[in-house]
């Protein structure tokens, strides 16, 4: 998924190379953390991983609301997605009724990274 931007200044990488996170659930509500791997990458996350972008990434689950909480002291964001668990652990027909795997859907979002910050990314370049 790594592609070189036409102007040569940015690369586009999957979010999981710049951040990590975990999913939690309560009822039909999912929360997904997005935590910067490095302080230099943090502003990119805040700028690009917006509630609107996350709602688009989860459009097939039709969230009724996506809230984003920004925590600069942790360099982390918490996304709260309502009504994305097909009813939640007791109601959904999904195999993963908790939505435990949803952090990997969020962390698949594309992130534009200046080439100068490439060395801050985690994992192999081809990842």
């Amino acid at each position, binding site marked *: 998924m790594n592609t070189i931007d036409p102007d040569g200044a940015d690369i586009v990488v999957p979010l*999981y190379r710049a951040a990590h996170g*975990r999913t*939690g659930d309560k*009822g039909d509500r999912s929360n997904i953390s997005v935590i910067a*791997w490095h302080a230099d990458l943090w502003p990119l996350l805040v700028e690009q991983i917006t509630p609107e972008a996350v709602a688009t990434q989860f459009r*097939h689950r*039709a969230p009724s609301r996506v809230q984003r*909480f920004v925590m600069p002291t942790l360099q982390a964001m918490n996304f709260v997605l309502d009504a994305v668990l097909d009813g939640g652990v007791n109601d959904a027909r999904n195999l993963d009724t908790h939505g435990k795997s949803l952090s990997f859907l969020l962390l698949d979002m594309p992130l534009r990274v200046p080439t100068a910050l490439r060395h801050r990314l985690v994992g192999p370049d081809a990842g």
Partner: protein
Amino acid sequence: MTDPAPSTVTAPSLLIGCAAGFSGDRTDVAAAVVDTLIARLGPIAPATGSDPTAPPALPRAFLIFETLAERTLALAQLRRRADPEAGYEPLLDLMLRPVLARCLAHGVGIVSNFGAANPRAAARHILRLARELDLPAPRIAVLEGDDLSAPGFRDLLRERIGATLDDLRIVSANAYIGAEPIAAALRAGAQIVVCGRVADPSLTVGPAMAHFGWAADDWEKLGRATMAGHLLECGAQVCGGYFADPGFKDVPGLDQVGFPIAEIDAEGRCTIGKSEGTGGFVNEATVKEQLLYEVHDPAAYLTPDVVADIAEASVSVVGADRVALAGVRGHARPTHYKVNVCHEGGWLAEGEISYAGARAEGRARLAADVLRERLPALDLRVDLIGAVSILADDTGRMLAATPDAGVRDVRLRVAATHHDRAVAETLGREVTALYTCGPAGGGGVRCSLTPRLNTISCLVPRDAVPVGFEMIREAA
């Protein structure tokens, strides 16, 4: 930023280890947690001038087991219906047997919600276990008040939920109660506190309240201790469990991953470490992931004890596998308890069949089409495991938007719910019939039919739910 400077006259800090993060967690992990607690406590001071009328000393450290998830309690209630002596954590014996003697000998208290739907029966089991191990009978307290399933609470629940309650077959109704009765039980001399539904962090806050003598409205301290409890309550999840992602997040020794130990000071601040001689690690990344786990608004993490606030929290490494949490605040607790009401929800029918080799995905998709035609009374969820499944949705939007990619190893899974068992059963019969009537080469049919439990939540005023504890002394 809001943390007070360390005071010059500090009470000794409190060690709390966690040896289970859910019902079904590993049962061979508590020994390393207890060994680490005992090593850090040092030898027990010899009893001086022992006065038989003096109140028993508080435990010097604590071991907690968190074993109740949202649906665990309803399942426990069903077991209790079938057997009045059941309904507590089925792994209780396996969890406690390896460590009970050492905990009692070294003054390590035990606090857990492993009482589930039947804390008294759990306490009787522990007394039997102690006898079997030739130990003196431990002082066990059971918490009371969380179980609202008795008919006497029906009017209260109807008032909060509405008339729909009358149409439901209630399985369980439990309030998430808090740390105060745990602390009271410990002050009264309990060595072991057996709870049913308490808020997970309260398993930590209760011992801290008793140990430091905090008031129930010391919000800042309760807020900090609550987040210590939050970091502990999922066991290995703060020690490298549920974290590994090869090539990106490599974790050493995951097969022997350690369990967490929090050191809590008199202000409620905590440092998280882990059991000695185990795998995994505790670092900024593992602590941040767990800190935000199941949190919604970070400025308002609601528990029965306090509204904890991590909006300006920070973490820092203070040693090998040691991370300090700072900047946590606390605000006045909610006026209401959260109550989960579980009720019977009909039947979940599931069926699976596999296709492999050339055009496997196409054959699986055809099988799904056949099932949709054959089962018009059921709203089918369709998964093509190996192609599109886990991240998809019950309505089938993602599946419909995903073209056949020619996957060569696909397991078709279909699932549906229905209130009528006879209708639900037709799903399994139709999946099985694919053996002879479906596409070529289908194999490995597995079908199941499971009673469903659904949950409704409501809030009830605290004063409508009397809570307390009772010391259990009699042997079974």
